């Protein structure tokens, strides 16, 4: 079946630095990917999405890059802030369903 996974379960960055969170997927059949942020004790919250006909999309302080050749997705957070500390999930839409990766916990150091 399809799988979506992240390269690192944890990532620590200094406040103000840029963060890069990576995700790999096994099946190129997905047309749509989403990044979610999950704070402790809360449900996932949408950050940014990208369709497979794009290779880059920018939001406020966040950029998603999609490399279909190597089946790789990344989330870049500019000027990381303490409020960015959370678990980040990528998810790919396969057929009717989203397949979620296991998540990367981002810790922002003062």
């Amino acid at each position, binding site marked *: 079946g399809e799988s*979506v996974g992240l390269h690192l*379960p944890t990532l620590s960055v200094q406040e103000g630095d840029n963060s890069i969170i990576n995700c790999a997927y096994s099946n190129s059949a997905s*047309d*749509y990917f*989403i990044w979610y942020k999950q704070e402790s*004790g*809360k*449900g*996932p*919250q*949408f950050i940014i*999405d990208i*369709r497979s006909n794009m290779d880059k999309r920018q939001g406020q302080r966040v950029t998603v890059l999609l490399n279909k050749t190597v089946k790789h997705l990344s989330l870049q957070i500019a000027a990381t802030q303490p409020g960015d500390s959370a678990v980040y*999930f990528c*998810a790919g*839409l396969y057929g*009717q*369903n*989203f*397949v*979620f*990766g*296991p*998540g990367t916990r981002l810790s922002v150091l003062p």
Partner: protein
Amino acid sequence: NAGVTQTPKFRILKIGQSMTLQCAQDMNHNYMYWYRQDPGMGLKLIYYSVGAGITDKGEVPNGYNVSRSTTEDFPLRLELAAPSQTSVYFCASSIGQVRDQYFGPGTRLTVT
């Protein structure tokens, strides 16, 4: 708008008991979903619905049932609870299939 609401927030069940997890959304979304999240893992889809009266199985449906009699509500029923169903359950909704999902705050369920 309240968004997606879930009740209860926490529940402890004994093995073999049954319960219903409630989910409601006030955004008039057609699509609704139930996921479970085990510690350190991503979300796995249990059931989903594309509209009132229509439901379908996700990746891990065994031990669960759903119904969708209205656009707003999508309850998840656990029959004969087992320890393997200890998890955090999230309900979500979206306006369409290829769109972002709005998640509720979750229900933490422990089966002992």
